[in-house]
């Protein structure tokens, strides 16, 4: 019994670890949704107060507008921070990304969170609508950089998922090759030549996939945008390429399935 006790603990902690990792991403998403609702609510109140101030131009309406603006600015920063935390957790959970890549994007996210923290610290000292404008404009001018970091992290998560599939694809291809080589003597020459040709097609798909992935990574690191629309356009192009890369792996795995069927039967 004592022999098995350490193993029980190992299994228990492994299970708990997996649960915690799963929970951290889910929890971050729930937090993001909550913060989004809070932001939406504070933004509506800000819009109402702003309209009233612009309509009546009274000191009371001005004070209300300032209060609501400060609350909204805080909620906005918290929302962005919660979203960045969600991305960070998704990067943490990703099994396909190389540690160096993971660190790169996580450090980008950490920088953005630090920036937002510094912004949030300025809010209590805002004493006028002009101050509020000034604080807000800092985020506005930085927002394109933040958006690029966010998009790069999202692309990296997708690439990590694809890399995980590609690793399984490579393992399956290697297993197929070992199986064919081990049984070459019992395969007819015709069947051997067919199977060898199919293996070339499988390798070819993997090669095209890799070319596409390299192009995506290059495009992702070179993301630059003068406007939000331009950024959207570039990201849409990359997303399309990711779809194509996935399609190559899908077609290659279908070839492997056909190969398995060819090996399963004599005729």
């Amino acid at each position, binding site marked *: 019994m004592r022999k098995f006790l350490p193993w029980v603990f190992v299994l228990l902690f492994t299970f708990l670890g997996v649960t915690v990792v799963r929970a951290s991403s889910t929890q971050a998403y729930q937090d993001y949704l909550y913060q989004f609702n809070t932001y939406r609510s504070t933004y509506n109140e800000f819009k109402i107060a702003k309209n009233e101030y612009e309509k009546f131009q009274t000191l009371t309406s001005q004070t209300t507008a300032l209060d609501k603006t400060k609350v909204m600015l805080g909620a906005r920063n918290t929302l962005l921070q919660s979203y960045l935390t969600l991305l960070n957790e998704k990067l943490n959970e990703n099994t396909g990304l190389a540690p160096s890549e993971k660190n790169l994007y996580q450090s980008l996210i950490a920088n953005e969170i630090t920036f937002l923290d510094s912004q949030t610290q300025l809010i209590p000292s805002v004493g006028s609508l002009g101050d509020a404008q000034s604080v*807000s404009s800092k985020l506005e001018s930085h927002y394109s950089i933040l958006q690029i970091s966010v998009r790069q992290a999202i692309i990296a998560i997708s690439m990590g998922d694809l890399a995980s599939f590609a690793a399984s694809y490579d393992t399956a291809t290697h297993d197929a090759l070992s199986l064919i080589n081990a049984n070459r003597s019992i395969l007819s020459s015709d069947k051997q030549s067919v199977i060898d040709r199919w293996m070339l097609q499988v390798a070819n798909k993997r090669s095209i996939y890799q070319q596409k992935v390299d192009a995506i990574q290059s495009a992702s690191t070179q993301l630059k945008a003068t406007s939000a629309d331009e950024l959207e356009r570039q990201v849409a192009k990359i997303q399309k390429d990711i779809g194509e890369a996935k399609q190559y792996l899908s077609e290659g795995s279908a070839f492997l399935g056909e190969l398995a069927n060819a090996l*399963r039967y004599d005729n």
Partner: protein
Amino acid sequence: MSEQQVPSIQPQEPIAQGNAPQVSDVQTEPPVPEPAPPIPQPDKRPVPVWLIGLVAIVLGSAVLFAITQPLRTAKPVTPSDKTNQTAPTPTPIRNLSTIATQSAFVTFDQSVASLSGVIRAYNIQDPSLSPPVLSLPLGFAQ
């Protein structure tokens, strides 16, 4: 039937020239037409109403039965695509190879099936990761 006296014509004496009877003297009675012999009448007993009703019901049922018979016997017509009614292709009998029984093959087969399923199900755009859309400028008139 009562017998009637039919007047018989008696032979008359030859009429003398001078004693020729005058027209007015001749008593000619128009012959009474014989009444038509009465047609024998059958016994006229009234037909009972229930019988008429019964006959009507039977006739009605027969007519109804005759009308609905084709509808009942007709099989429901199911729309069928005639073009699909081809002879089934016999499934070719395939012999399992010796490779199929190897554990390495079973592992390979399972991993390929699993990989295909995972890739097919993968959504490249995770909806939970779509960034929030914010309206940043405060828009206060300076």
